[in-house]
């Protein structure tokens, strides 16, 4: 998966949890909680969805590393290589 594809999937899952968010208006550095106003239940649902889509189990201690689209793409690409997901 290219970083662009990962970004697209991330934004699709984000907009399923927060349907009022228009993916085209989300910038790479928007913070999912501070800027996009996800609460802890939303974040957990996002992590659950990413687990299903990528097979990557993001531990709680790594949540800060998916806090923006830019961070999340880098994190998921790296974790994907580690689990041999391409």
């Amino acid at each position, binding site marked *: 998966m290219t970083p662009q594809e990962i970004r697209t999937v991330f934004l699709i899952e984000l907009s399923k949890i927060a349907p009022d968010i228009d993916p085209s208006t989300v910038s790479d550095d928007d913070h999912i*909680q501070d800027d996009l106003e996800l609460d802890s239940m939303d974040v957990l649902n996002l992590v659950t969805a990413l687990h299903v889509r990528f097979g990557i189990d993001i531990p709680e201690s790594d949540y800060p590393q998916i806090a923006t689209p830019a961070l999340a793409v880098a994190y998921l690409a790296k974790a994907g290589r580690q689990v041999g997901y391409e």
Partner: protein
Amino acid sequence: MGVFEMPSLGADMEAGTLVEWMVKPGDAVKRGDVVAVVETQKGAIEIETFQAGTVHHLEADLGQKLPVGAPLAVILGDGEEAPAEPVAAPEEARAEPVQPAAPQPPPPPEPVTAPATAPPEPTQAVPPPAGLMASPVARRRAAELGVDLSQITGTGLGGAIQLADVEAAHSGSAESKPAEVIPERKPASPMAEMRKAIAAAMSRSKREIPHLYVSQTLDLEPATQWLAKANQGRDPASRLLMGALFVRATALAAAKVSMVNGQYVGDPFEPTKSVHAGVAVALRGGGLVAPALMDAQDLRLDETMSGMRDLVTRARAGRLRGSEMTMGTITISALGETGAEAMTGVIFPPQVALLCIGAPQRRPWVVGDQVEPRQTVTVTLSLDHRVGDGRQAARFLNAFESFMQAPETL
């Protein structure tokens, strides 16, 4: 034989619009079955029957706005014969104007008391078929645009139809044919309706309930560490949130100090044994609902968490049940993971207590003779002074604190 009526789904609900039938004549129903979906100021609510039997006939039509108490359907009990004549609804229920709970000027002659023969409201042109999940805002927008919800594939959680799906379906069809339905008057936005409902309930609360408030700051370090450890071995679908610990501790404390738990429906106040824990859920874009987690005193921590997850998902998709909206016995409102440290809340009538939980803060804390940085949280109980005093509120908070200090027992 029972007449199934438009229920009151909130302290100040006056009327609701029937948007979906989940049954048809001849269907067998049991207690608790969802019979219809009603659009209210707080979104679409699934309403249940409290009578078992067979649906004889449906009295109300889709799209009708009906006052609380108006007949919706007739349900025959087991072994009952069908009446020879169509059952006339009680006249007073049919004719009763929508009467606010509090003294107010006479209600305006608005056609909210639509008789059974009234034409459907123009904005409800396309009633969705049974079984569709759609958010309240999506339903309303679809009605405005004349979009048929059954033709839309939802992309929300559980396949729920979201606003964006409706807009997308509409823009897709708008290219081929111009929009021909322009509503004559723009209906109030769902958010404006929700604010009105909140304003009515909270104003009533402040008018009728003499509130007292008791606060306590407690050490959240044991629960924080226990939770981090518990979640290490869990995949995301089975992880816990601190909110679940708060709700579980509240349910246990309310079962123990039961005079904070129940509904004030007349003197003397009678506490309830079952704890139906209202969980305040902020809706994205604004607004608030507090559906109840039923019999929370009997739910283990994992069950509490999955129940809350389900409630939040359905609150956002617009699929709460009438019982969840009306049977709460105490409500919990938490500010979340970060932000302000304390909140003093307004009790949700006819309940008698509300527990507000501030965002946890890292603060200096005395442990033995040392000062240590610890996670702390400030909780504030609002209590109806008619049913109890500060002393009982403090007892409840002490119980809550004890449970939070022993998270492994939750």
